[in-house]
């Protein structure tokens, strides 16, 4: 058992790796009624080619298999359904799949240990049949249609897809129709047996219970369960070049205004410092120059060049940092030119650096005001690092203007992709 201090926040996470390899993280918040438990496997939509456990060769699986598996984990061989069981226990359960992970969770206020143990039990007892796989195909296809009716999500995914030549980021998480209808129960078992081994999973718990009691309960749960020994999973390694897939692209969706996505791709070792800090500095740079705190954004709005504040993102995708600026416009060529010009004349302001840093730091106090937001904090840490480090807050506190200037000197926009979403009527 080891302690992970959430530096600067006066909070501690207790961590233990169990004998079967399962990583358990527990944070106690005595004054709250609620609990939240996240059971995570390191298997998301990016992974579709790997050597399944107890096999020898690489196998390619249909797109969307991780998400399909997430849906089917709610099947039980006998007795009550997962939903009914959680209802009986007063827990609220669900699951979600992103590119890197699949996460199952339960939240509640009563029967903590029963809910926690049932979460572990149902995720560790798969039951797939030809019939229940077929039954799910129609449901997931409806989900696919629903997702595709959100034009801003379609636009965002296309913007990301246009940046990457080999990476699967931006491609569908749910799968295309042909993928969904081609998935079999055998596919699901092969994926399950490989990635749902405890040594490839983590459990994060926030509750008002003693950390030691929580860990002992999980140990007891795992004691009599048998799992195959899992060596390092061999997943097809994808090498991504620095250039972008498409420098310019136009899509047509059911929107009223044209959207311009201005996206920059930068290798994550460009800046020579801790990658989390580099991301923060770039965030401050983009925020101070393009967000509603910038005179540039105000000027664009007052001149009606954009009709909403610019929206911004700075994120990591594999070995790359992606900077994303979206504008809602009448004249797409004009905004691209203005953004190009602005990137050539970036403002470096100590005043804005300090203000944005202050604003970022204040977020952490808010994080620790509810169980859900504490879980979000821990999950984000896990998401970025495949483990909980506890370093996030201290990295914010340590940001300094000199280092910021060093990062800006190395910043470049040479790999850039523009994706434009126009209203359907413009296509005609």
């Amino acid at each position, binding site marked *: 058992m080891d302690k992970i201090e959430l530096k600067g926040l006066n909070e501690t996470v207790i961590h233990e790796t169990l004998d079967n390899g399962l990583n358990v993280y527990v944070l106690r918040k005595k*004054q*709250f*009624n*609620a609990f939240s438990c996240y059971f995570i496997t390191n298997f998301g939509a990016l992974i579709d080619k790997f050597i399944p456990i107890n096999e020898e060769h690489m196998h390619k699986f249909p797109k969307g298999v991780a998400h399909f598996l997430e849906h089917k984990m709610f099947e039980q061989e006998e007795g009550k*359904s997962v*939903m*009914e069981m*959680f*209802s*009986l*226990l*007063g*827990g*609220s*359960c*669900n699951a979600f799949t992103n590119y890197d992970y699949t996460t199952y969770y339960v*939240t*509640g*206020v*009563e029967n903590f240990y029963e809910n926690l143990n049932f979460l572990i039990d149902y995720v560790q007892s798969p039951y797939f049949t030809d019939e229940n796989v077929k*039954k*799910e195909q*129609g*449901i*997931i296809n*409806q*989900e696919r*249609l*629903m997702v*595709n*009716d959100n*034009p*801003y999500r379609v636009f965002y995914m296309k913007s990301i897809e246009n940046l990457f030549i080999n990476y699967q980021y931006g491609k569908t998480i749910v799968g295309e129709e042909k993928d969904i209808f081609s998935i079999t129960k055998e596919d699901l078992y092969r994926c399950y047996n490989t990635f749902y081994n405890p040594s490839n999973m983590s459990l994060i718990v926030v509750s008002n219970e003693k950390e030691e009691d929580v860990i002992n309960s999980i140990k007891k749960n795992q004691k009599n369960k048998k799992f195959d020994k899992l060596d390092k999973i061999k997943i097809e390694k994808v090498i991504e070049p620095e250039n972008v897939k498409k420098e310019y692209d136009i899509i047509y969706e*059911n*929107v*009223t*205004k044209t959207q311009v996505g201005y996206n920059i791709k930068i290798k994550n070792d460009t800046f020579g410092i801790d990658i989390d800090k580099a991301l923060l500095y770039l965030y401050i740079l983009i925020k101070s120059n393009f*967000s*509603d*705190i*910038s*005179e540039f*954004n*105000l000027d664009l*709005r007052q001149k009606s060049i954009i*009709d*909403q504040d610019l929206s911004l993102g700075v994120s990591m995708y594999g070995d790359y940092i992606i900077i994303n600026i979206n504008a*809602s416009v009448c004249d797409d060529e004009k905004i691209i030119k203005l953004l190009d010009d602005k990137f050539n004349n970036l403002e470096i302001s100590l005043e804005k650096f300090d*203000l*944005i840093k*202050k*604003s970022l*730091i*204040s977020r952490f*106090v*808010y994080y*620790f*005001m*509810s169980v859900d937001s504490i879980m979000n904090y821990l999950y984000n840490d896990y998401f970025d690092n495949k483990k909980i480090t506890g370093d996030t807050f201290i990295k914010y506190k340590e940001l300094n203007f000199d280092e910021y200037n060093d990062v800006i000197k190395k910043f470049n926009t040479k790999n850039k992709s523009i994706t434009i979403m126009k209203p*359907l009527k413009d296509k005609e």
Partner: protein
Amino acid sequence: MEYKKYEYDNYTVHFLKTNKFKSILVSLQLINNFDKETLTKASLLRRLLTYSTGKLKDKTQVVKKVYELYNSSIFIANNIHNNVVTTDFSIEILEDKYTEKGLVKNALEYFFDTIFIPNIIDGKFEESNYNLAYKNLSDFYDREKENKNKYAFNKACELLDEDHLKLNPNGYKEELERITNEDMVSYYNNLFKQANSNIFVIGSFNDKELLDIINSRLEGKLYKNKNDFKFNKCSAKINLKESVDIEEYNQSILIMMYKTYNLTKRERNVVLPLFNRIFGVGNNSKLFRSIREEKSLVYDIRSSASRDESLVIVQAGIDYKNKDEIVKYVEDELNGIKNGNVTIEDLDNAKKSRRHILKQFEDDNESILYIKIGSILYDNDDLEIRQQEVETVTIDEIISLAKKLKLDVIYMLKGDRNNG
């Protein structure tokens, strides 16, 4: 939690004292009557007051101020409560001990400046900010179709009878086009004179210090008129309306609206939320189990209950060709409840789920505050009463309430992009 009330001639101050949280949440509630025009003006005013103030002349200055105050952002919302609308000005401020000395005082000054020192020059809102706010609202209306669920919901509401008419709290584009800058100044000035005014604060603070700040800023600014809030008396007359619109979506949206009438206070406040959970909330509801899990016809189906309007609304993303089948299954599930198909387990599960939500409210300062506001201003029950009452609901009460549901609207937003 300690509750204190300070009544003044023109407004009432309500304090909820707790040290469970690290912030102070303040909400000024102005209750007024409304129509389509005032809802639209309220939406425009929300933008006008937050884009600039008499002291901070443009949005960039406002944003800088918010960051300087550790993200103490001001939110202005217009919430319809049956026959009245509340303009809710709120701000959340981190306590001084987590930030810096004087933050609460400074942030409150900024809060009241935003409300009472607008950027008005020579009897008009400053022109460039007015134009920005106006354009932003106009664009907002143009974009309403982009969220198909919301759009379908608003279209379905338009089919409701007059006595159930749910106006869009965001207002209407045709109303906006008639509004002038001078109209907005006049609306702003009257907003305070005609309202019933209350201010609520939750957190850990010194009563006297806070009262001094509040009173120094509210004195002479507010008026204490009658709160006209009352529940609709819904007509028992049923006149089923059906309508289909076609749009370029992949998937179709089905909305079914059920009227209820003559609900007692207990039915409205206590039984209706439990009935709704059994019928269509969450992944163990009757609708979810039957139409998604057993018949695989949808990914998402759910019901919601509007307490103020006494409506139950079913919403699902569907394949259009299955519309009649799904409507029938929804009706079958409701008829099942009417005919007694509710088990003790159904009711217990719904109670557990409700208990979970009510208990979670105790962990959230915003929930505690708005439940208190609901109990004081809108005839709702306080949290403690809700927690006690939920345990006393019987199966007979669920069945009896189900029998009061009458199908009033079936609306389809048909997606024709891929024959959806």
